């Protein structure tokens, strides 16, 4: 799952941290947590949609 972790870090860093400051504040952490869950939801949804097309 290394590739998924790398993608999540890149996508959620981009979505949640507009200008990097001197620490990760609580609102940024909250955003990353939600972003991470939504990215995994999306991965699962894509996986299901793609499966049903190739069967």
């Amino acid at each position: 799952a290394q590739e998924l972790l790398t993608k999540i870090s890149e996508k959620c860093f981009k979505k949640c941290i507009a200008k990097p400051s001197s620490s990760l504040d609580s609102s940024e952490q909250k955003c990353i947590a939600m972003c991470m869950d939504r990215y995994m939801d999306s991965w699962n949804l894509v996986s299901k949609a793609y499966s049903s097309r190739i069967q």
Partner: protein
Amino acid sequence: TQKQRFQGIVHSLTDQCWDICMEKPSSRLDSKTSFCITNCVDRFIDTSNFVVNRLEKTQSTFSSELDN
């Protein structure tokens, strides 16, 4: 392997459809975003199939172009 190829395509589709469909991440995947992601996967596969089919019809032209 078959499974790695499958996961590779899922990674690539998730990457592209996320950029197209996801605005601000929220506490659940809302129905508008889900709908967008499912359509994005389906239309992307339609696009790939369309490209491959159309290419097969013009195969000879294409081969000669790539052999330049």
